[in-house]
């Protein structure tokens, strides 16, 4: 009885693996192609220091590109060193992890189109609001 439960679970897991691997592999290839196509210098030429436009653009950049949070910290750190404002960097870091246009097709296939669109749209807007609130809070604390 117990071995039957394990066998059934293994079969279900294998089925899930077969279904999801083409998407995951496609996703990785797409992200890599995108990251390699966008020159790093582009980031610093876009941000101008505008308090409204910068977080919006930061969220746009973070939404298109995606990946491990670690990469967003490193890119954010590099942008900070180049004089980009904190509000843009915060929006960039937040949307990097929470929004993903490149991975949207994969998310839609696995979690549903309506859910994925709603989640990405709301995450995009909250990344901008949260970025402004973070910088305002830091200003008050300082």
């Amino acid at each position, binding site marked *: 009885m117990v071995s039957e*439960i*394990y066998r*059934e*679970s*293994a079969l279900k*897991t294998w089925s*899930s*693996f077969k*279904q*999801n691997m*083409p*998407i*995951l*592999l*496609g996703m*990785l*290839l*797409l*992200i*890599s*192609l995108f990251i*390699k196509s966008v020159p790093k210098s582009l980031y610093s030429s876009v941000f101008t220091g505008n308090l409204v436009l910068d977080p919006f653009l930061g969220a746009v950049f973070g939404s298109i590109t*995606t990946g*491990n*949070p*670690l990469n967003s*910290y*490193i890119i*954010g*750190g590099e942008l*900070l060193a180049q004089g980009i404002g*904190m509000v843009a960097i*915060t929006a960039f*870091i*937040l949307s990097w*992890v*929470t929004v*993903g246009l490149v*991975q949207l*097709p*994969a*998310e839609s*296939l*696995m*979690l*549903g189109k*309506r*859910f994925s669109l*709603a*989640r990405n749209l*709301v*995450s995009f807007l*909250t990344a901008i*609001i*949260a970025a402004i*609130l*973070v910088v305002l*809070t*830091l200003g008050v604390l*300082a």
Partner: protein
Amino acid sequence: MMKQKLLSKWTFFLIVFLSYLAAALADTNLVFSALYYTLNILWTIIPVILLVFGLIFVSNIILTPKRIVQHMGKGSGVKGWLIAMAGGILSSGPIYMWYPLLADLREKGMKHSLIAAFLYNRAVKIPMMPLMIYYFGWAFTLVLSFYMILFSIINGLIVGKLAEVRE
């Protein structure tokens, strides 16, 4: 239905393959560089992939639809939110690695709002905090983490409403 689902997934893979072909026509070096980058990512995320499918295996054994509905379904209350948020914070690797597990849990009854909260909390990464502190300082790291957790609840509530409108 299953056949159709598999077909659309391979269609997606085919589109990616064609994108690479198109890119190769323009710049062969770019394609090789992207492929090398993919191999590097694959190498680093293999443990996460194994972890995710290991968790799916375990969840198939212990997480019955009845239990999921009880802990993370409708009426799961604060406990459901806390489980989803902690899961999001503790999970590692790229966000898309977790889609299969979440899709599986959703089929068993997990609420949309909790899936959204889980995904939003993926932005809070405890093991990576030293790097964030190194670049941006303690104050920024703490304030950002606080807002990320707060907005994961707001995000979950809104997405939950929007996603469940037609269901």
